[in-house]
């Protein structure tokens, strides 16, 4: 596994940094609802470090997967063979997710606002959009029912960190409450981007900058955000991946660099 030269060396890539940062945030969590890609890396690394025994639940119905290879989609056959359970979609969305069994849901988005609401539907007007995006999938349900939500967004721009969403596909709990609906969880608590980490404690809070990655300034992040981003009392600098974390990521989690591109 560690036979190929240079695997453990080399500079830290953005994917590696984001995976490591997200993995650390999973300390103590037991169940994660995740898609494929960076969340996969983060969860697998967390399982080997801060969250032993953590279980990934996939939108496709797989619980407790033990894949022989790194999966390429949430429905990859390698996730099913050898899994602990595969359940129907009514059971997955109804009993597992809405039933409140998910500690952390991972989501991505085209746009996020300061309250952690997400847009994955359209850029422009819904009726005749400039860009038609895929839509919710299960994101509306993950936000409404997971105890908390982590968002991973590589690109950090004023367009994606928007003052106003073009369309709110997936509302945070503050919007839900304003609509008279009580969500189970607190919505987005962590947003990991190429520039740093935003955090939000719970209902009524907005996202604040809590950390910048090495070499990134607070001013850069504020300029890259479409709203007037507030900062935590003291903005930390992200602790770079440790050699141990990098070795696990590169040698055990994704030796073929499927996602560590």
């Amino acid at each position, binding site marked *: 596994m560690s036979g190929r030269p240079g695997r453990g060396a080399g500079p830290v890539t953005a994917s590696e940094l984001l995976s490591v940062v997200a993995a650390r945030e999973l300390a103590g969590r037991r169940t994660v609802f995740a898609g494929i890609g960076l969340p996969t890396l983060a969860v697998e690394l967390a399982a080997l470090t801060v969250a032993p*025994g953590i279980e990934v*639940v996939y939108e496709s119905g797989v*619980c407790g997967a033990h894949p022989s290879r790194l999966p390429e989609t949430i429905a990859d056959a390698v996730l099913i063979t*050898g899994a602990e359970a595969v359940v129907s979609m009514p059971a997955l969305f109804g009993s597992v997710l809405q039933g409140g069994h998910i500690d952390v849901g991972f989501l991505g988005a085209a746009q996020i606002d300061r309250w952690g609401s997400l847009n994955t539907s359209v850029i422009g007007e819904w009726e005749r959009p400039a860009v038609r995006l895929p839509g919710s999938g299960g994101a509306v349900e993950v936000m409404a029912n997971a105890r908390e939500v982590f968002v991973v967004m590589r690109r950090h721009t004023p367009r994606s960190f928007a003052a106003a969403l073009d369309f709110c596909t997936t509302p945070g709990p503050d919007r839900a409450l304003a609509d008279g609906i009580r969500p189970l969880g607190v919505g987005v608590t962590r947003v990991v981007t190429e520039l740093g980490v935003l955090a939000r404690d719970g209902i009524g809070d907005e996202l604040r900058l809590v950390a910048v990655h090495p070499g990134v300034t607070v001013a850069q992040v504020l300029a890259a955000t479409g709203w007037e981003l507030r900062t935590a009392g003291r903005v930390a600098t992200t602790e770079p991946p440790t050699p141990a974390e990098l070795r696990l990521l590169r040698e055990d989690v994704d030796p073929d660099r499927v996602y560590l591109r």
Partner: protein
Amino acid sequence: MERTTDAGGAAGDKVVSLREAVARHVRDGDTVSLEGFTHLIPTAAGHEIIRQGRRGLTVVRMTADIVVDQMLAAGCVARLVSSFVGNSSAGSLGELRRRIERADPEPLEFEEYSHYGMVCRYVAGAQRLPFHPLRSYGGSDLPSVNPGIRKVTSPYPGPDGRPEQIYVVPPVNPDVTIVHAQRADRRGNTQIWGLTGVQAEAVYAADRAVVVVEELVADEVVRADPNRTLIPAHAVDAVVVCPRGAHPSFAQGYYDRDNAFYRSWSAISADPARLRAWLEEWVYGTADHAEYVAKRGEEFWARLAVGEALSGSVDYGRRL
């Protein structure tokens, strides 16, 4: 990137004795769901609740049958939520009838539903819904004696274009659900075949869940057939190994139903003294279910033995 099988190590191991599971998870005054529709009835768990002398329980069970009659007779139960209170097709439940018909020796609060009403309550409980609609109860007297059964007006027009009403039931969220199953791994991934009833929903509806199994199997056995896992580990708090724990009901592929015992229960339960003696001999008089099984004797179990009828194997495939 194969993760170590039990990264959780001992933390992921939920196997405890039935005594410990009941001591830890069933408390006086709790709402306790015992499910298993004729198949896989968690009798041994009911007996252990009796041995430990729990009081003031609300028992939730679709088909309240022998084990419920026994728990009633032992004084564990203050309230019963059910959709069928009878000894299968074999006769009556003496204690239950005395409690309801004559408050003898004390009254029993009874909440009556239909089977699908109960199923919908479990589904709503499992899915954290405030209510579940169903096309039953129109014109029934049940809503008049059960204020839990209510009506909602659909926000969509009915087939005749006018507003449409439908009955709904409230969720049930037991403090603890106990079910019996054929097998599980140490983390609680539970596999059931044959009649699967409402066990998965009853487990998901509960705050705590105890799974009692005929046998504990290696992780590899469970993971060879993930679709057979009806109850994933994340929903389970305790795994108890208790062979023959569903007697007098059956465990598909393990042992058959003890129809003679069902038939005998009407007479036993009709006489409070005889019922008391039965409990003394078979429940209080045995330290645990293993003793109950031993006391029955090998010949007894041989009569309930079943032959083999294998399911055959399907291929889940592996990447080449």
